[in-house]
């Protein structure tokens, strides 16, 4: 029996996160940092979803930015060309991303390892090429502006407003992820990562779980793609590019596979890194690549699980 007074240490983490997020806007020196924090939080939510897929279920996706693109372009194209209200467009994007993920998940998840990487990569690239070429709708390679998001007819315009909305979404996503991985669903995912055959033997419906987690992470990505597009106010095909997918996978691995707080750390670090490197003028690509390599060699399991192991606690 669990002691009713016992508080799971991870819920301390959730409380700490909420506390930090509540204080941050009052201590950040200027709007540059507020903007950076908002973008970190958006990435963190996407990475949480991707980590459920990669870290917990053990299924790689090199095309997740494609789903971000679906959300971003749904929020740009539908209100601009068809007068759809932005919230409805966000929902339509999420639905489309979920439907696409569901449709391809059956053939895709028969694949493993490099073949799975190839298939998801292909999906992302096809989407990017479509966004780039359908210039009449999407503005082509130059991109297009995205109208303001209104929630219950309140227009989100200031960075402060955006901050609170995104912070609330982040806390909710962390809370949901923590509960999810402790649920029977989460246990089934981890079982399937450990051994597909063993989990099949004990009655886990592998195909259904893989599809569920893939759809869930795609919907996460699409919604945050919409949010990000509204926040920035502009969208270009680069949101869905291969390199963006790679960045997201890297956030998962650097922070720590199968670690909720690792996802946050990975997103924070790798969102900040290009900003820090921007001063190197031309050398930022070299530095970024070098740091990726170094991380993979020195901390192959990712920051949070490695640190947790050093502190003598479980990941």
């Amino acid at each position, binding site marked *: 029996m669990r002691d009713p007074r016992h508080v799971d240490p991870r819920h301390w983490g959730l409380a700490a996160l909420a506390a930090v997020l509540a204080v941050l806007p009052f201590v950040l020196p200027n709007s540059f940092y507020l903007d950076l924090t908002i973008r970190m939080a958006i990435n963190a939510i996407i990475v949480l979803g991707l980590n459920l897929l*990669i870290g917990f279920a053990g299924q*790689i996706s090199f095309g997740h930015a494609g789903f971000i693109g679906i959300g971003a372009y749904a929020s740009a194209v539908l209100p601009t060309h068809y007068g759809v209200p932005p919230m409805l467009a966000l929902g339509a994007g999420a639905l489309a991303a979920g439907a696409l993920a569901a449709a*391809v998940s059956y*053939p*895709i998840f*028969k*694949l493993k*390892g*490099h*073949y799975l*990487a*190839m*298939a998801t*990569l*292909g*999906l992302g*690239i*096809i989407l990017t*090429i*479509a966004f780039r*070429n359908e210039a009449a709708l999407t503005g082509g390679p130059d991109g297009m502006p995205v109208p303001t998001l209104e929630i219950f007819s309140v227009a989100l315009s200031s960075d402060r407003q955006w901050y609170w909305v995104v912070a609330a979404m982040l806390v909710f996503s962390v809370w949901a992820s923590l509960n999810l991985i402790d649920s029977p669903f989460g246990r089934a995912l981890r079982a399937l990562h450990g*051994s597909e*055959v063993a989990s099949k033997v004990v009655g886990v419906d592998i195909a259904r779980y893989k599809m569920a987690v893939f759809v869930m992470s795609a919907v996460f990505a699409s919604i945050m793609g919409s949010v990000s597009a509204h926040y920035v106010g502009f969208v270009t095909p680069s949101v869905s590019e*291969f*390199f963006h997918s*790679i960045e997201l*996978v*890297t956030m998962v*691995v650097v922070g720590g*596979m199968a670690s909720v707080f690792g996802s946050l750390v990975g997103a924070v670090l790798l969102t900040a890194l290009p900003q820090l490197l921007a001063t190197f003028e*031309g*050398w*930022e*690509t*070299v*530095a*970024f*690549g*070098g*740091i*990726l*390599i170094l991380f*993979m*060699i020195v901390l*192959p399991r990712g920051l949070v699980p490695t640190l947790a192991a050093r502190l003598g606690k479980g990941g």
Partner: protein
Amino acid sequence: MLAEFFQYLFSGFTVGATYAMAALGFTLIYNASNVINFAQGEFIMLGGMLAVLFTQAGLPLPVAVLLAVAVPTLVGVVMEKTVIGPVKGADTVNIIIITIGASLVIRGLVQVTLGKNTRALPAFSGDAPITLLGAVLPSQSLWVTGGTAVVVLGLWYYFSRTMGGKAMLATAINRTAAQLVGINTGWVLTLSFALSAALGALGGVLVTPITMTSYDAGVMLGLKGFVAAVVGGLGNGMGALVGGLLVGVLEAMGAGYLSSAYKDAVPFVLILLILFFMPRGLFSAKTTERV
């Protein structure tokens, strides 16, 4: 009508030959180490960029070509020694990220030293086009397809007639068994990186007079080489060759008959279809998976 068809077919063969060389590079490294080297496209780019650099520096073409293949080969060896060798046996995702990191380093260094401009290389044997079955082709096409043919024959000879090649094959089939019979599998890994870098660079040098090149040209070339390798069944040399040509030809046909804007999408649609219906590529043996 027919001339048009041959036009697409031949230009597809030309580009496909480059994809095939990239795919052979993927295959070599995959067989030696189970690693997919996402920096393969950078070797192609390096070959083209260096050939431009060396010819512009006034070196005679054969010397420039030789150097443009030799330098990337060295880069491949350095890459294996410094970042791949130390993490042998790590997770697939980690190694993939390492190779992507390496590709960023190479691309970044080229960007910083040689700039962002698109570069062109003069054709090896003049600009007069050749006419074949009603199709008009740049003479450089012959260099590309001929070069690929020589490479394929060379590899065939190496793997079937020499000890070094057989050692590589043995390592690909069973690493532990290969070690037991005294094969230096670490050396095989280094050699596979050297060979695949050389293949990629040679493909890059040969195709640059047709396609031109720039610091970021490696991304798409590498990805399409990967598609070609997977189409043929990863790790299968013959498959890589056929896969490369097939991807090139379908891409050219797609560009000609369907839409040139969606040319780059053709290989990826193809790979999705193939993977959906033949999850192990076109040419891989039907094996039962053990658990």
